[in-house]
């Protein structure tokens, strides 16, 4: 009997978890698609070109660089696809196509491969690329288009023309500048300010509901908080993303917004609007999908908690005082760079290493 079979001899363990780098990358990619498709649906077909351009450029760059570095071409691991997708999701819906293309090349060639490729990069490629684009083409990267504008042309869609007016100038940066320009106007919070800024907006109501379901301007992939949360819940259940970073990231944003953000509207402490800060900008996309990138976040639970709190604080600082439209990517990038230091600082001691108390 033993002659017929060939037995494999190898080191234990002999069974492995079904989750692999590849399955993780592809699962995340697939679960990000609904939010992306929603973005395309909201902003029109041009957004789809942005997405395609980013993904194709990422993959092509990956292939070229792997060839140059004489490494096995392993684009089937999904990491280049995911990077491209994330770059696109962090783009405003009407940027000229060269921006996502150059950003994707930057993400793969500089951020990922200049430091040794998968597993070695010092920052999340997509986040770094977004920050890079933000500084290189600030104007294009902060020009927003209104969702469902194409629909409103033929006023027959159920979403209707009312929504067209909803989100004009709805980027966070615009709120900050709006606060400045609206001088003496007093409003108790960001929603009111919005209604005051634009006469169009006054006609309708900016509600949490609309913010949550994505009826607002923003980057292609970040507007539908609803779809992003569904994906996040599944990925947390699959243990692909861990809860520490998003929880403390968003928690810090909410808490500090609640404590400090009211000051801007002359309401004093503890009068901010945490929900508004969570539902706008890239907070949810960033916290669940960019700040949970395995390579560039700390190894330990304690480290990830520090990462989350740090990123939350930086985000809120930028949102409140910075000149930039959005702080999420900047915050993640900054914490990415602190990650090696956090990992060096937080060590785990072997079980029973410190003398335990006598039982």
């Amino acid at each position: 009997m033993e002659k017929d079979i060939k037995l494999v001899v190898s080191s234990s363990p002999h069974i492995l978890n079904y989750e692999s780098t590849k399955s993780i990358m592809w699962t995340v990619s697939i679960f990000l698609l609904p939010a992306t498709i929603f973005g395309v649906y909201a902003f029109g077909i041009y957004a789809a070109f942005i997405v395609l351009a980013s993904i194709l450029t990422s993959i092509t760059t990956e292939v070229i660089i792997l060839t140059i570095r004489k490494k096995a071409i392993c684009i089937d691991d999904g990491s280049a696809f995911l990077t491209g997708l994330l770059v696109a999701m962090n783009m405003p819906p009407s940027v000229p196509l060269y921006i996502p293309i150059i950003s994707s090349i930057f993400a793969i060639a500089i951020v990922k491969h200049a430091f040794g490729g998968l597993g070695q990069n010092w920052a999340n490629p997509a986040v770094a690329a977004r920050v890079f684009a933000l500084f290189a083409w600030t104007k294009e990267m902060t020009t927003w288009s209104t969702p469902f504008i194409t629909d409103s042309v033929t006023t027959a869609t159920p979403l209707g023309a009312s929504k067209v007016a909803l989100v004009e100038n709805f980027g966070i940066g615009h709120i900050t500048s709006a606060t400045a320009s609206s001088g003496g106007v007093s409003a108790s919070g960001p929603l009111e300010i919005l209604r005051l800024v634009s006469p169009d907006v006054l006609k309708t109501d900016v509600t949490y509901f609309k913010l949550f379901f994505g009826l607002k301007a923003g980057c292609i992939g970040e507007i539908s908080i609803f779809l992003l949360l569904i994906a996040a819940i599944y990925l947390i259940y699959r243990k692909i993303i861990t809860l520490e970073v998003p929880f403390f990231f968003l928690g810090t944003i909410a808490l500090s917004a609640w404590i400090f953000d009211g000051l801007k509207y002359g309401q004093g402490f503890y009068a901010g609007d945490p929900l508004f800060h969570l539902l706008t900008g890239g907070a949810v996309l960033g916290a669940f999908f960019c700040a949970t990138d395995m390579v560039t976040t700390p190894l330990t639970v304690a480290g990830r908690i520090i990462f989350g709190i740090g990123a939350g604080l930086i985000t809120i600082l930028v949102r409140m005082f910075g000149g930039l439209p959005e702080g999420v990517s900047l915050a993640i990038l900054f914490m990415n760079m602190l990650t090696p230091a956090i990992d060096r600082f937080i060590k785990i001691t072997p079980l029973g290493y410190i003398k335990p108390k006598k039982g």
Partner: protein
Amino acid sequence: MLFEKTFGSNGVHPEDYKYLTCQKKIESAYVPNIAYVPIIQHIGSPAKIIVEIGQKVEEGQLIASAEGFVSVNVHSPIPGKIVGFEERYISIGRKSKVIVIELDGEFKKTGKTFTNVDYNNFSKEYILKAIRESGVVGLGGATFPTHVKLSIPDGKKADTLIINGTECEPFITCDHRLMLDRSEDLLDGVNIINKVIDAQNVYIGIESNKKDAIQKLKSLCKNKYKIKIIPLAVKYPQGDEKQLIKAITGRVVPVDKLPVDCGVVVLNVSSTIAIKEAVVYEKPLIDRVVTITGNGIVNPKNLKVKIGTLVKDLIEECGGLKPNVKKIIIGGPMMGFSQMNLETPITKGCSAVIALTDEDSKDFEQNAICISCGKCINACAFGLMPTILNKYIKNKLYEKALDSGLMFCKECGACSWVCPARIPLVQIFRMGKDISKKLILSKGK
């Protein structure tokens, strides 16, 4: 059961595949015509052969005797004639001298019904001697000599006895079946052990995927014994001594100490029953229950097997192998050893023979890149950082690896199991340990 005890937040949850055999009662396997009995079946020095070729032996006769205190007697599993000695690979992947016995003569123990004698009057010394002479070892796989474990050094006192019924390795069900099919013997065994160590707390820790065993033992213990049955959450590696102690008593055994230093003695279910047989029935350890299982076995079973039976005979008795078998494992899939062929004899430490198919057994990536996900750190119940150890060993920074606790790695495999990059971490750590040991030795000179 919402708040079952467990050892902490680490550990992993592999698919357990217990359903293949957990409903199957223990059957006696065929007696082998030729038994191959290795002299290394335990931790410690090999036993010394005391028989000659051509000599007739009885079932249960001593054929190799313990060399020193940390060594174990080996007995003939069958009546017969010594026909030779040979070198053979044993289950742990090394060679051992093997005593070859051809079946001949009459069984004195097998098939006989034993009468229970009242063990309550047995002295501590008598019990220890009986255990030592019968060659009982830790049957969970560690094969540490039981008489050594139970000989508590002067000045130390164990206040807690834990019987390990966790069986946290996937596939294996021999202890599960023993707890069900031989519950009384198990409880007797526990009482006998406790006559030696006299602990006030006696626990049997069972993972809650064995609800039937928990219930049966609970109802048997009620009003009768002071043994407490502790249901535990299902998690690997809970069967490790130190993890089990932490789960049940909350005590943490220091890395360089033994459980007894924390006042705890842990014994496995199979060993406990072997102790009863040794003490009450005067039956040496010549057979054990082995789970023959895996998706590559036609008809998985729990068999009571004579030591020295070849793996191929057992597989044949279970209907043979399916065509897509990739690996044969002796022991559990997490810590067991893959076999080169089916000619390996069953020894005292073999709790299971598992045939894994292509689907069950994925390959490691030899050039895998760590993606720093930290999953291995969360998995390691021993508080190590496998990804960091891996990095150090790869870069030949052995001293740093040692400082980070490389030697405390139990090779439990949890980190390798969870690693999405499929890095063969355990293999790397074993290699790293070997090299580090050599380095330490060469430095010492």
